[in-house]
C-alpha cells in the first residue's frame, strides 16, 4: 500500500485508479524519481488506459494521482488538472510525430513554456541528448523508425516533464535498433531523475529495462517487484503463466525442515524437496512452478550428482525444435500433467531425445517456487 500522507516532494508519482467499466481498472502503485517501472500485461489488460489516465487523456471513475507534490487527480474532491498543465512526457506507441513539422519543429513546439530566445538552445540540447544533431531539418517521413522514436523521446522531454510515459516505445523498430534504444533509455534514466513508466507486452524488453515490473491483468496489478524476483517468485499461477512459465502444477505441502532450510511437497505420488517456505502449512494445497531452465536432463551415458535432486522419470511426449533450442515435453510415469523443459538442439541430438523415449530429469530444488492457490474472481 502507498503512504498517501507522506512527503511527496521527492519526484515520486503515486497512482490509484479504480473503475468497473468500460475498461476495468483496480491499480495502485508509486514510482520514484529515476526509477523505470515497466507495466507488463497482455493486450486489452488496461495498460494503455493506465498511461492515458496519468497523462490526463482519460479520466477514470475513481482515482488519485499525486506527482512531485502536486495533485493531478482526486475524483473524491473533484480535482482534475487539465492535461496541458500536467507536465507529462508521453511517447506514443507509433510516436505520433507531427508529420508536417521537422524534427526540430516537433521538439520546439513542446517548448511553449520557455522564452522564444531559449527555445532554440533547448531544442539543440535535446537533439544532442538523443543523438540527432544533424537530422534536425528532416521531416518524420524522412527518418528511420529508431530516429523517429528519438524525436518522440526528445519531444516528450522538452516540457521538462515530471513523469515520462512510454507506450510500447520499441514495438515499431527492428531487433537491432531495439537493443540500441534500450541501452539509450538506460543511459537516459540516470540523467533524468524523474519516474519513467513504460508499458509493454514484451516480457524480455521489460526485464532488460525495468527496475521494477508490474504485472497487470484485467486492469488489476497482480504483482509489482524487481524482474528477478517476479521471474523466480511469481505471486500466483496467473502471474506465473503471464510471465511465460509452463510448469505450473498443484501439490500439497508435506513438512518443513527449518534446520536444513527446506520444505517437502507432494506432487501426485512424488515427493519433491523445495526451498524452505514455512508460510505454507503442512497439508495445505498449493500451486507450484518451476522455470523450464531449472529442469536438468539425466544424461544417458554420464550420470551426474545433480540427478539425485528431485528425480522424475517419464516418457517424452513431444519434441519441438524452435530455432537453436528444443522444447521437450515429458509425461512423468505417475502423472497426467507434462513437464516442459528447453535444451539446446545439440544436447537433444547427442542424447537422442525422441518422442516415446524414456527419460529422467531432475527438478532443481532452488527452482521450485510454491504459490498460494489462486481463488478465481469472476
Amino acid at each position: 500500500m502507498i503512504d498517501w500522507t507522506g512527503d511527496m516532494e521527492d519526484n515520486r508519482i503515486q497512482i490509484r485508479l479504480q473503475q468497473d467499466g468500460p475498461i476495468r481498472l483496480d491499480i495502485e502503485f508509486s514510482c520514484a524519481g529515476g526509477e523505470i517501472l515497466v507495466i507488463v500485461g497482455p493486450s486489452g489488460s488496461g495498460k494503455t488506459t493506465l498511461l492515458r489516465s496519468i497523462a490526463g487523456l482519460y479520466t477514470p471513475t475513481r482515482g488519485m494521482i499525486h506527482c512531485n507534490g502536486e495533485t493531478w487527480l482526486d475524483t473524491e474532491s473533484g480535482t482534475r488538472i487539465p492535461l496541458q498543465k500536467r507536465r507529462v512526457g508521453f511517447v506514443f506507441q507509433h510516436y505520433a510525430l507531427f508529420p508536417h513539422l521537422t524534427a526540430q519543429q516537433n521538439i520546439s513546439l513542446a517548448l511553449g513554456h520557455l522564452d522564444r530566445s531559449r527555445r532554440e538552445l533547448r531544442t539543440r540540447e535535446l537533439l544532442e541528448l538523443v543523438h540527432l544533431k544533424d537530422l534536425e531539418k528532416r521531416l518524420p517521413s524522412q527518418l528511420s523508425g529508431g530516429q523517429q522514436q528519438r524525436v518522440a523521446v526528445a519531444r516528450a522531454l522538452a516540457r521538462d516533464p515530471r513523469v515520462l510515459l512510454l507506450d510500447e516505445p520499441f514495438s515499431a523498430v527492428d531487433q537491432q535498433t531495439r537493443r540500441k534504444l534500450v541501452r539509450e533509455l538506460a543511459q537516459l534514466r540516470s540523467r533524468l531523475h524523474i519516474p519513467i513508466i513504460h508499458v509493454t507486452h514484451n516480457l524480455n524488453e521489460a526485464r532488460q529495462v525495468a527496475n521494477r515490473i508490474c504485472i497487470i491483468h484485467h486492469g488489476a496489478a497482480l504483482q509489482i517487484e524487481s524482474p528477478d524476483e517476479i521471474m523466480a517468485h511469481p505471486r500466483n499461477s496467473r502471474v506465473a503463466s503471464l510471465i511465460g512459465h509452463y510448469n505450473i502444477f498443484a501439490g500439497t505441502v508435506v513438512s518443513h525442515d527449518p534446520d536444513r532450510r527446506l520444505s517437502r511437497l507432494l506432487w501426485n505420488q512424488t515427493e519433491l524437496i523445495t526451498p524452505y517456505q514455512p508460510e505454507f502449512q503442512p497439508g495445505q494445497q498449493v500451486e507450484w512452478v518451476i522455470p523450464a531452465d531449472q529442469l536438468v536432463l539425466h544424461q544417458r551415458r554420464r550420470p551426474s550428482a545433480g540427478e539425485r535432486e528431485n528425480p522424475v522419470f517419464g516418457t517424452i511426449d513431444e519434441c519441438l525444435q524452435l530455432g537453436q533450442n528444443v522444447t521437450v515435453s515429458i509425461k512423468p510415469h505417475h502423472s497426467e500433467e507434462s513437464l516442459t523443459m528447453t535444451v539446446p538442439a545439440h544436447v537433444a541430438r547427442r542424447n537422442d531425445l525422441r518422442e516415446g523415449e524414456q527419460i529422467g530429469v531432475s527438478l532443481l530444488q532452488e527452482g521450485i517456487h510454491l504459490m498460494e492457490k489462486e481463488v478465481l474472481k469472476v
Partner: protein
Amino acid sequence: MDWQALQLSLLLGACTAALLLPFAIVVSRWLAWRRFHGRNLAQAVLALPLILPPTVLGYYLLELLGNQSILGTVFTAVFHDSLVFSFQGLLLASVVFNIPFAVQPIQRAFETIPQDIREAAWCCGLSDWQTFWKIELPLAWPGVLSALVLTIAHTLGEFGVVLMVGGNIPGETRTIAIAIYDRVQAFDNQSAGTMSAILLLISMAAIALIYTFNDRLDRRYGR
C-alpha cells in the same frame, strides 16, 4: 465572349468560398470527431445538394429567399433590397448548393488525422485552439484546398439553381454558365464555344491542381 459574366462568376466563386469555408471547417471538424445522435441525419442534410436536381433546390431556395418569405421580408426591411434576382441572393444560394463540395473534402481530411497526433499536441502543452491552428489545420490543408477549388469551380459551372434564384440579369446575376446558354439561344455559337472552352480549362486546371498538391503532400508526409 461575355467578360462581364466571367468576372461575375469569379466574384461569386470567391465570395462563396470566403463565406463557406470557415463554416465548412467548423462543421466538418465537428462531424469528423464527434459522435452524437442525429449525426447521420446531419450528414445527409448537408449532402442533399449533391443529389437534389438543381431546379428542385432552386425552387426551395426561391421559396426561402422570396419577398414573401420571412428571410426575404427581413432582408428587404433591413437592406431595402431583394434577395431573389440579386447578387446577394445568388451568393446565399451559391453557399447552400456548395455545402457538400466544401464540407466533404475537409471532413475526410480531418478524419485522416490520427487521434494520437492531437493527443500528442495536448501533451506538448498546446491548447485546443493552438492544436487546431498549428497541427489540425495544416494537416487538413489538402482538404481545405480541395474544398476551395471545388467550390469555385462548381460555382462557375452551376446553372439550374442560378437560373431559378438569380435569373439572367447582366452584371447582377448572369454568370458564365447562364451566358453560355444565352448565347446558344441567340445562335452565337462562337461566343458560347469560347466561354465553354474557358470553363473547361478552368475546371481541368482546378482538378489537376488538387491532384498535384495532394500528391506532393502525401509524398512529403510519407503517407
